[in-house]
């Protein structure tokens, strides 16, 4: 598809999407610096290949692909990071700007969700992707994307609103 977006459009696009993209990338790497490297590589690749600027499913699929490549290339380090996180509830580099204890607890609960549910939640809540876009990015059906989202919300609701 021909890309008619101007350079300024791309700058605005990056500025708007960067917080959500970084959060998305942080699911695979705990270091903010690694997440930044992933997002930079993905965004530049996406931009250079002249994809449509609004093809967000492809952009997020690119971030995911680069993150998984990084993990494969550096498996031992990723495992060490994952172990370090699981040993402590305190994430060294916070993923959210937390205002109070309740938000801290909610962010910690998010970290404990199964990965496939958390990535759908992150794409939907903080990146405003539709289920159709999420399904395309993850190569799953829309029903599966919607189910994972509901399972994630149900799990969080159970923790925070036990009744």
């Amino acid at each position, binding site marked *: 598809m021909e890309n008619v977006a101007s350079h300024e459009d791309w700058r605005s696009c990056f500025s708007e999407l960067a*917080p959500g993209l970084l959060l998305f990338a942080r699911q695979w790497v705990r270091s903010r610096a690694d997440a930044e490297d992933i997002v930079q590589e993905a965004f530049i690749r996406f931009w250079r290949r002249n994809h449509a600027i609004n093809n967000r499913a492809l952009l997020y699929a690119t971030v995911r692909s680069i993150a998984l490549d990084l993990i494969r290339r550096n498996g031992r380090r990723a495992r060490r990071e994952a172990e370090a996180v699981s040993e402590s509830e305190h994430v060294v580099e916070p*993923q959210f*700007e937390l205002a109070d204890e309740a938000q801290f607890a909610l962010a910690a609960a998010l970290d404990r969700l199964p990965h496939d549910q958390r990535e759908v939640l992150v794409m939907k809540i*903080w990146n405003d992707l539709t289920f159709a876009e999420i399904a395309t990015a993850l190569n799953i059906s829309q029903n599966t994307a919607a189910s994972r989202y509901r399972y994630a919300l149900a799990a969080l609701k159970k923790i925070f*609103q036990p009744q």
Partner: protein
Amino acid sequence: MNDFSDIENELKKLRPVHPSHRFVARVEQAMGDQEISEDKTIRPNPLRTNWVGLGLGVA
């Protein structure tokens, strides 16, 4: 309104950490560098036609 609207609203109140200025500048610079390097690339144009030569040839 669905069953999960309360927890959805709580989640939406969580703001992802904002990217550093250094990171944003780094990406913008990368985009700028790519543009410059692409502008400087001289590619042969296989469809370029030498109309003067063609006209002289026909004449």
